[in-house]
């Protein structure tokens, strides 16, 4: 039972991270369209932000693995 709950929790975390990374990607595309000359800066900041969001989700997934 706790295993199922952990799996559900991991799923919820993935939804959160999906929304977060989706927003980052969308806004970055928008920013690049507005200012194509700033593409390098935007890209590296986008990856950085995506990694931060993804980190939160992955911590939950790893926790879900270790909760039996």
């Amino acid at each position, binding site marked *: 039972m706790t295993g199922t709950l952990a799996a559900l929790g991991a799923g919820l975390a993935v939804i959160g991270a999906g929304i977060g990374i989706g927003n980052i990607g969308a806004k970055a595309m928008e920013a690049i369209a507005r200012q194509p000359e700033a593409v390098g800066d935007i890209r590296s900041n986008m990856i950085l932000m995506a*990694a931060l969001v*993804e980190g939160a989700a*992955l*911590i939950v997934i790893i926790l879900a693995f270790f909760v039996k």
Partner: protein
Amino acid sequence: MRKIFITLFSALLFTFVLSAQGHEGHDHDDQTTHEHADATEHDDHGCACHHDEKYDAGATAFHHIADANTFRIWGDLYLPLPCILYAPEAGLSTFMSSKFELGGHGDGTKAIDRFVLHHGTVMRVADDKFPMGEVAVECFTSRKEGDEDVFQVIYQGQCYDLHKKSTLDGGVLGGGITSYYDFSITKNVFTMILGLILLLWLFGSAAKAYTTRDGQAPKGAQSFLEPVFVFIRDEVAIPFLGDKYEKYLPFLMSIFFFILGMNLIGQIPFFPGSGNVTGNLAVTMALTLFVFIIVQFSGNKHYWEHIFWMPGVPAWVKIILTPVEVLGVFIKPVTLMLRLFANITAGHIVIIIFVSLIFIFGDAGESVAGSIGGGIIAVPLTLFMMAIELLVAFIQAFVFCILAASYLGAATEEHHSEHH
């Protein structure tokens, strides 16, 4: 081009299905013993040797990402690795892991000074009655204690409990207290030494090229390393660290190329590669500890002021803010550690689960049609995942490096803007 792709695809498929069938041969014999093994499993004296249960993809994945005291080269051929084991009551034992005389599934058939090899990992018998020195053991089993599995070794028809895998802290930080310490050159340590030699050779040859080929276009390793080096310097070090970047550049570069090298070596699915180094919590913890110590020691007055008494905010906010900031000092490196570990581990697990589809659909080698069907699904998925992992190897090295640089930059920032 298309022809090459099709050939490659079918070659991979063939290899996968073949390996699934190879698995079948010896699982098939076990199938009959398996039935009554289940019946005796919950007996009090369930000390008979019973063979592995049904194919478990999750267990296989965890076994593959874990560190081990053996390194499989091919089939039943293992690279002997030195075991350096210390148990407080028995002293130091050093020997090669080949002395365990590996049988199937990475289990040793010998016990040496109460040490046994179970699924490629050294474990210690937790019983004083077990003889010291070299003795032959029959097989391994496990019993349930609450929620946890306790592994057991069977020696002369008698079950002996095994202590959990050792950790450097003796199990204080999770994993339980163990009776022994393992300082062995494990699979991961071996991979790190290999990576170290590779990096030294690559950078040595690139560095030499700058003196011998001064003023000419880069060549060989130099032409790959130079753009990456310049990218990290211009995109990571300079924006975050300002003029002090030269002081921290060697550290950032070492971290970046170590993580990148280890990620890429871990991607190679066969012998010299496949060690899951950056997907090991101890490794990422050590890397993060370096970052943590360097950040704290290079932190200037402003950095500490911002943590303990944030300027420019009302006093009551400071009381709330200070504990949060102090916690932040520790949470930042912890997330850094977990991010790299989780990303690489997740990637390895997903690839292994995809390969496992062959065994799941093939009913652990029982049905050939299932294996082929599983293979047709597994090959493109695995190829896709490996391509993604190649990207992740670069991105995670970059992210670790950029976050380390941003923490360093925050700790060493001189000037101070008015608004916070």
